[in-house]
């Protein structure tokens, strides 16, 4: 059973989209923690 092109494309694009979000989320969280003085 071969994976369809559409499924493979959806898988790769979804993975790239979530990976793009990761640094954004981490930077926002860092700024929030820093402003609240809750880094450590």
């Amino acid at each position, binding site marked *: 059973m071969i994976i369809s092109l559409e499924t*493979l494309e959806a*898988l*790769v694009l979804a993975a*790239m989209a979530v*990976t793009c979000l990761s640094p954004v989320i981490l*930077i926002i969280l*860092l700024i929030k*923690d820093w402003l609240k003085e809750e880094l*450590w």
Partner: protein
Amino acid sequence: MDYNPISITTALVILVVFGAVWIFFGWWLGRKNKSLDDFMLAGRNVGLAFAGATAMATWITSNTTLVAPQLTYELGVWGMVGYSLAALGLILFAPMAKRIKELMPEGYTCGDFIRVRYGKTAWIAFLVVSFCYAMGWLVSLGMAGGVLLNTLSGLSYHLGMTVILAICVGYTLLGGLRAVIATDYVQTIIIIVGVLIIGFVCYQTVGLEKVYDYNKEHHPELLNLLFPAAMMFLFNNIFFGLGEIFHSNVWWSRALAFRPGIGRKAYFMSGFLWLPIPIVAGFIALSAPVLGLYPDSSDMVGPMVAANLLGDIGAIFVFIVVFSALASSLDSLLAATSDLVTRDIYNGLINKKADKKTLHRISKLVILGLGFVTWLLCLPKITTLGALLNFTGAFVASTIWPIVLGLYQRRMSGDFVTAALVLGTVSGLIGYHTIGFYVAALFSCIVSFVICMIGLLVKNDNFDWQRLKSMEKTQ
């Protein structure tokens, strides 16, 4: 075929620059460490940003960045998806992290938990399993550093391995867990951005449709969802990943270091954010046949595709990403294993009356000692990375059920846990040698599960959870 897209000078410059930055960072953060809790557990008050990033970075090892493309190249779509399911370990550990912090707020290591929860015999069996795994992972990371530098730049394996180990030991020694966590944050950002750029360039330049059509015609097994070897790999990888995370002090020390209420959120978040990374890092390998790239060693398929698409800059990108991935795991493992040696072996068996100042000093000596022992074991390069890692699967999978049941079930008794650890590991090793690497973790986990279930049926330990709060000493 020699494949050295980076000159030795460039490789050394990158190593010196990054090494100097990490070591300075370690020293700068280490100035705030006043107590043993500061050094071992970063003050037990780590916030969500650092907590999430350190869990992600530690789980992104050289395997994620080099082996994910390799597995996709060998096993196709299931290779990258199967690898990404290792995120289940982080996600399932999330509720356990909350439970650990609540049950033993004053605890230091996973060894503390096993000792108080199951008694001395199970504790010793657990320490043996845990050290075999920790040393296996440390040596595999040290070797990966040497192999990476040698393959990408031609720098000698021994010199590369020594420099990478020295950098990681240096900043872990100076800054303790605080330095490990802070460098992990920066390393996470570097790794994600690097992997994304390489993935995006591949997607734009080669095109997924072209990759799909070419593989469908010439390598249809790579797109086959019922590829048997890939399915076996998938199940073994899930159990291996669960065992690695559930038992290792790398993850327990973080659960104890995070501020109350943060552990569950941090592990959930890191698991879901980690999940797509092997897919992004891995899918580029599917384009290798289209580009006419057939590497001699399949773990170099990722760097080869990156270098082909981005030129020498691509190889430098891969080098920085893999170096960051290696360092983020090596430092964590050094710190967590040092805690285990200091707390469980020195304080638990050798000097039970040691004060915290003595333990702080010993902890630093242990980091140095571990670095030296790892270096010695890496020198002969006795085995391949994959073989070494798969071997440890037999050990770690035996710990899954003793840990889970120990955290949530009062009935579970130490005698059966000792049997589960020993017989589970032995079965895994027999499976590894008689059938293959892909059943080691599976056998170990199943045998350990059966023994734990028998234990639950025939004996009731009726454990008092309060004993974990007071962290009793061994008699």
